[in-house]
């Protein structure tokens, strides 16, 4: 069942600066359960800063972040426990086996051995890597590692999955597989997903889109709504129209 009153993720009037540079400027948006939300922005738009704030790598200077109603600053434990994260850089330990990596992560979230074993088996089966559990991560391909990272992020049963440019370094086929996989999670489990990317074609019809540009939100809605608001047909055109001539639409191509 969906709970429409409490959003999976609420970002409210979030601002952050590093010295004189403003990285985020009054960013607000929300992601309900079961929504695949694409956070679209060029490099340097502020996506990584936003992710760092949502994962509490550091606290925001002003504004608020709430995960299923828990405030990130006041109740970080509750908020972080509901979040699963896939970072842009690969963060699996290549010298450890797939299972050892999953155990490490489960332990960090305080899961018991029995729960870890059971869920790891489940998640590995879902990504079709059951028989690779005992192998070192080094032996896996790039696409397999990404899927293991997604499995790892789901081990503690989060309600919000954050992915920061998760398709970097994957070829077209693997890219589609990963996007399909996460869409399926969204549909089947009602997981809320925030997917950061600079690739316009990663947003599908029906997904939500937040366009972030130079630290500000320029558009927020479904793909169709954003296009309609900009008075154009495609997301490419909408993005170009929104971000203006200074940042040619070319940046969005893979």
């Amino acid at each position, binding site marked *: 069942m969906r709970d429409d009153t409490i959003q999976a993720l609420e970002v409210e009037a979030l601002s952050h600066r590093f010295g004189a540079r403003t*990285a985020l400027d009054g960013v607000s948006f929300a992601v309900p359960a079961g929504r695949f939300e694409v956070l679209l922005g060029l490099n340097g738009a502020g996506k990584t800063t936003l992710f760092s704030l949502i994962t509490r790598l550091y*606290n925001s200077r002003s504004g608020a972040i709430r995960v299923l109603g828990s405030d990130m600053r006041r109740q970080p434990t509750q908020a972080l426990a509901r979040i699963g994260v896939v970072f842009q850089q690969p963060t699996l330990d290549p010298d450890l086996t797939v299972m050892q990596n999953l155990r490490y992560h489960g332990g960090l979230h305080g899961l018991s051995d029995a729960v870890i074993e059971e869920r790891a088996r489940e998640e590995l089966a879902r990504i079709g890597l059951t028989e690779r559990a005992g192998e070192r991560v080094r032996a896996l391909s790039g696409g397999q590692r990404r899927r293991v990272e997604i499995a790892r992020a789901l081990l503690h049963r989060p309600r919000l999955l954050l992915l920061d440019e998760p398709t970097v370094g994957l070829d077209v086929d693997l890219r589609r597989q990963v996007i399909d996989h996460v869409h399926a999670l969204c549909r089947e489990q009602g997981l809320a997903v925030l997917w950061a990317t600079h690739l316009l074609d990663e947003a599908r019809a029906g997904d939500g889109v937040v366009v972030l540009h130079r630290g500000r939100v320029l558009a927020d809605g479904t793909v169709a709504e954003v296009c309609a608001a900009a008075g154009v047909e495609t997301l490419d055109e909408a993005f170009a129209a929104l971000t203006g001539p200074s940042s040619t639409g070319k940046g969005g191509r893979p």
Partner: protein
Amino acid sequence: MNAALYWRCLRSIIVREGLRFVHQRERFFAALVRPLVWLAIFAVGFRAVLGLSIIPPYGTYILYEEYVVPGLVAMIQLFNGMQSSLSMVYDREMGSMKTLLVSPLPRWYLLVCKLLAGVLVSIAQAYVFIAIAWFWDVRPPPLGYLAVLPALVLGGLMLGALGLLLSSFIKQLENFAGVMNFVIFPMFFASSALYPVWRIREGSPALAMVAEFNPFTHVVELIRFALYLDVNPTSALVVAGATVLFLGAAILAYDPGRGFWARRGGPAEQA
């Protein structure tokens, strides 16, 4: 229930550090060969140069090898502390640090877990070294091997906490050479690890003063006294105090509100 959560977190961090350590055999041998080279070569050459009088905790004249072993044990811990700081910086650049920090447990606790895991590794290394030193005829009383354990724990905590603190200041891996030059070498040479403080005083009273205030000297003396079934309360206090200071500062430096990340942004933020 809550305690179980904390325990599982600690255990999994220790298991990971242990596995990484086992997988990096070069690191283990490097950590072992370094003090052995000092013991087998440096100590032999130095024996002739340095006459030692009877000083506590030793009850009799001793050979230089015997004098230098506690200093080399402390050196193992010093390098191990710096090594874990290096791996923190590496983890931060590689992103695996983020995996640690998104754990819902409090950040200070995660840092303490990381510290404890490093201390365990350094204790294992230290014991292997003093076992080998036995074959060099450096044979403290048998009970000394047990008595030295608390000293190793405390010394490892202090040097590990110092490593944690330093790791919060080092922005990139390349800057680590600076730590070698400005922290490890001065700390090691301006201490009682290689020569007693009274010997330093003969050469330079000022340097002797530095050595007396150098917390590393106190790690060395703590280990030296414990190994020979004696207690050095001053050193114990200094090492405990320095541990609290370094760890507190490291926790502040990693605090999400005011620390490293908030000041300078994440690693991918330069764009």
